[in-house]
């Protein structure tokens, strides 16, 4: 047992919350930099985590385990494996970037950053908790800051969006709570690893029911069609940085949860449900893309594209092959990076033009060449252009699911259509915003500034790195994914 790095990652931002709260509310500059510091340190720590991770084994690493409530067999149990290490890193990265991107927030700055850091605590916690009690606590903790961040600093319909988001997720959490209790009363433990080890114990129908309960909880977060309608509202109303976190991290918790809980604990049910999951993924891909195409609001377009992209995740995991599940994890990381960047870029133009209506722009390419270039880069990444992470992820999902013994091939063939639809709406958006005659109404727009470039730059680096050299991410996933798929024995 060395340095408790996972606890450090999780609770260091909590110190930040306290530090920010102790500052005077008028010291805006100091508050900003304090928040930045308290999110930067976890980023550095997460780099150490990545560097210290042993990629050769699928065993849980960095374990921290202490008795907590021995009366009900609850332990404080943190650990990381190939599923969580990339996510922890992504969380640290996006949190830091989002905080930098939030420097433009002018109202109630102190509360904003305090909530934001608390949000980071919850997110980190979810990705490293290995005890259901702890997991559930972190899962719920996250909701509160998110609710306030949307509800206070959001757009015109923020109350509606915040409440919708909160209730939707809480609705799912109920199912999760029931499922956790069911597991607890069956086995007497809340330790995930132990529950996985005991997975042969569960009866067939028990597996199906508990799987379904967990799945609903996670599916709402992903969001899987038809549980997705909170997403466009929340994304559109949330301030830029919160949209980044929503798209980049929160959605991933759903897929992470399914892979962490549903798959290894209920392999039989997973096989049983793999076709429905794949079909839900397919619907998400096609439906999300089609609805994206109909959008007139830039942010809403990106939001719906998330529904489509997370559909690939669902399809990939439903395949239950090494390639498919890796594709799902790739898509999680890649979507976090790309869509995070797209939201940041939407925020950049919104800050300047105070509108997000696609049709209001036009010909910006001539006036804002750098912004256009960066936007086009991420737009292309989003539509799966090779050389960038989105392509690798989608390709792996397709190949993996096509080779899968568990799902029907026509699902995959239809899902491929999503690629062309994605190309359609991304190109239409780029054309309407950046190409064509310059709309002189925007004569005074300024190009993207240094701070904003600083926020998207690391995301571009990771998009390209994974796109060109996917092994850089795959080494972390490989052992864990292979171990996971082995459970299904094909």
């Amino acid at each position, binding site marked *: 047992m060395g340095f408790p790095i996972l606890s450090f990652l999780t609770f260091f931002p909590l110190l930040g919350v306290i530090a920010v709260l102790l500052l005077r509310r008028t010291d805006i500059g100091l508050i900003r930099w304090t928040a930045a510091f308290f999110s930067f340190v976890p980023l550095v720590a997460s780099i150490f985590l990545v560097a210290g991770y042993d990629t050769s084994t699928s065993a849980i690493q960095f374990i921290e385990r202490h008795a907590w409530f021995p009366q009900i067999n609850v332990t404080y149990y943190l650990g990381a494996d190939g599923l969580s290490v990339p996510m922890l890193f992504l969380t640290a990265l996006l949190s830091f970037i989002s905080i930098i991107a939030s420097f433009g927030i002018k109202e109630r700055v102190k509360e904003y950053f305090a909530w934001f850091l608390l949000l980071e605590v919850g997110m980190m916690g979810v990705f490293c908790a290995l005890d259901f009690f702890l997991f559930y606590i972190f899962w719920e903790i996250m909701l509160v800051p998110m609710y306030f961040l949307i509800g206070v600093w959001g757009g015109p319909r923020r109350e509606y969006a915040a409440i*919708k988001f909160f*209730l*939707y997720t809480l609705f799912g959490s109920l199912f999760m709570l029931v499922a956790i209790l069911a597991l607890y009363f069956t086995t007497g433990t809340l330790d995930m690893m132990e529950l996985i080890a005991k997975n042969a114990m569960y009866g067939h129908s028990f597996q199906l029911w508990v799987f379904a309960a967990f799945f609903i909880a996670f599916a709402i977060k992903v969001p899987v069609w*038809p549980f*997705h*309608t*909170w997403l466009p509202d929340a994304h559109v109303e949330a301030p830029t940085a919160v949209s980044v976190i929503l798209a980049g991290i929160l959605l991933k918790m759903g897929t992470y949860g399914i892979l962490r809980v549903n798959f290894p604990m209920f392999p039989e049910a997973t096989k049983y449900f793999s076709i429905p999951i794949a079909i839900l993924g397919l619907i998400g891909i096609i*439906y999300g893309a*089609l*609805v*994206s*195409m*109909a*959008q007139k609001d830039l942010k809403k377009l990106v939001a719906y594209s998330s529904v489509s992209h997370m559909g690939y995740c669902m399809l990939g995991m439903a395949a239950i*092959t*090494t*390639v498919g599940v*890796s594709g799902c994890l790739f898509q999680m990381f890649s979507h976090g990076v790309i869509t995070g960047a797209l939201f940041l870029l939407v925020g950049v133009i919104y800050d300047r033009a105070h509108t997000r209506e696609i049709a209001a722009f036009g*010909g910006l*390419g*001539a006036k804002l*060449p750098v912004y256009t*270039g960066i936007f086009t880069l991420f737009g*292309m990444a989003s539509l799966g*252009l*090779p*050389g960038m992470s989105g*392509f*690798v992820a989608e*390709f*792996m999902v*397709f*190949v993996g699911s*096509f*080779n899968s013994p568990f799902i029907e091939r026509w699902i*995959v*063939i239809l899902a*491929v*259509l999503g*690629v*062309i*639809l994605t*190309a*359609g709406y991304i*190109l*239409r958006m780029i*054309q309407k915003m*950046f*190409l*064509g*005659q*310059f709309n002189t109404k925007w004569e005074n727009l300024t190009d993207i500034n240094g701070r904003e470039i600083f926020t998207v730059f690391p995301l571009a680096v990771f998009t390209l790195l994974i796109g060109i*050299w*996917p*092994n850089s991410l*795959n080494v972390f996933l*490989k052992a864990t*994914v*292979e171990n996971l798929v082995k459970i299904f024995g094909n």
Partner: protein
Amino acid sequence: MIHNGWLIPLFPLISFLMIVFVLKKNQKASSYFAIAMVLISLVLSFILFIEMLADGHAYHKFVNWLSWSDFELPMGIFIDPLTAVMLIVVTIVSSLVHIYSLGYMHGDPRFSRFYAYLSLFTFSMLGLVVAGSYVLILVFWELVGLTSYLLIGFWFEKKIAADAGKKAFVTTKLADLGFLLGLMLLLFAAHTASIPELNELIESGHAPMTLIGIAGILMFMGACGKSAQFPFHVWLPDAMEGPTPVSALIHAATMVAAGVYLTARMMGIILVSEAMATVVATIGAITAVMAASIGLVQNDIKRILAYSTVSQLGYMIMALGLGGYTAGSFHLFTHAFFKALLFLGAGSVIHAVHTNNIQEMGGLHGKMKITSITFLIASLSIAGIFPLSGFWSKDEIFAVAYDGGHYFFLAAGIAAAFMTAFYMFRLYFLTFTGTPRDRHAYDHAHESPLNMTIPLMILAVLSVCAGWWGIPWLEHGYGSFVKFGHHAHHAEPNIALMAGSLLVAGSGIGFAYLVYRKKVISAEAIGARFKPLYKLLYNKYYFDELYMAAIVNPTYKITEIFFRFDQVVIDGIVNGAAKLTLWWSWAKERFDTYVIDGAVNGAGYLSLAIGRVLRRTQTGQLQTYALVVFIGAVILIFMKFIRI
């Protein structure tokens, strides 16, 4: 150099990065750096080519890109004679276009960016050529698509250019779905996408041939998109909205030929089944004839050339479908030079007269001698006049069709060849000879600067000589270098066939001469005579309208419907649930107010009411009180007595 083939694409990439991050402000530096880098690639390609001529063996090298215990996806390079030839073609045309653009793009505000895009394209195209796995081919395949998109829409202020870029991207992407599906099927069936491994597997005969065959036809769909074959040909004519050097490089010589290159690469897969080969050949033949017929009546100089490109690509595809690996790739080789020359010549003309419409030109020969002469050479070459390049390569294709007994395809080829000769010379005569039809444009016309005419001259030389490499009498010619399998394809020289093809080309030119030079036959009269046919051709068989009505508009409709569904049904359910809950809570609130709280408050009200009545007894009259006390006392006493 063969072993370091991966270096060749790298230099244009360096140039792209340098321009984007460092040089972009300095137009001169950007362009010269890009030219220097592409010239290095050109030199390296030549070295590789010469080594390959001497060696002749395919070379491949792979590295681990993605791997799991049960699946591997290595990436690497594969270099064989076809690669060497393609490298030469791409680097030569690209270098010349780089130089030509110095003049053509002079003064454009986005000059540096143009060179960045050119470099990126060159990188992707070279990468595509050396790629050793179909997955890697797909990667570069999409990248060339991206640069094509960026360059078509280079003057994006013009809506038509932006639209054309999008159309090109989406159309080819649609075709690429086939490529992607084919690749998935290939990986499923053969567990590898590496070209050398796949070739070995097919040769060994232990592969699931049916599945691989289906995969091949799906991947061929991708090739159809890139090479603008029927029914995906609609994007290429629109792509002419891009700057002319781009049309020459991407949409004539290299990228559109990528589909042909891919089809050639997949030769082993295509030849697995007769049916599939027939499909390929048929699509090629349809495209060749259809595009040539459209080309007969168009008036935009670049669009005529675009349809000509589509038609010539159809030739190549047809040749490959008929098993003519050598013939198809050889035509690709020669076509690249004369078609690039035609486009650059057209660019030179447009540069001079600032219009694309050939009806507004005429008589330019006197003003632009170099352009006119080189254009004439290229026209003769594409028409297939002895002894220019086009003659030899076209003859190869006819020979393949004739030797294989595919007379239908031979007829299609000859028909297309006649039309090609006709529309090329219609174009030539209308542009360069006769009297100027637009005086103003004519007066301002001038010969282009040297940096534009020198590439024209170099390409003219290549248009004449490149084909000599494939003269059938040659002992160690093209046929023994680029060959499928282990045996050189050696078509017996067929003098009769050659004479026939020369006759067809000659009659096409002669017909054009009579109509447009001598005006013995009136073009208007023919047009009026066959009016329905003329309209059909002029409107390009209404493909655009058909696709618009059958695919694009319904898609938009569907998106609206789905969005409505999302808002009305799904959100309706969610909001309905919320409303129901709200109603329920409202009802509960009423219950609370009126029933539960009613009971509590009611008790209070009741006491108040009673008090209100009873307080009437409080008169404030002491004597009344005393009376009551007294009466009470009396009653008590009486009760006492009555009780006891």
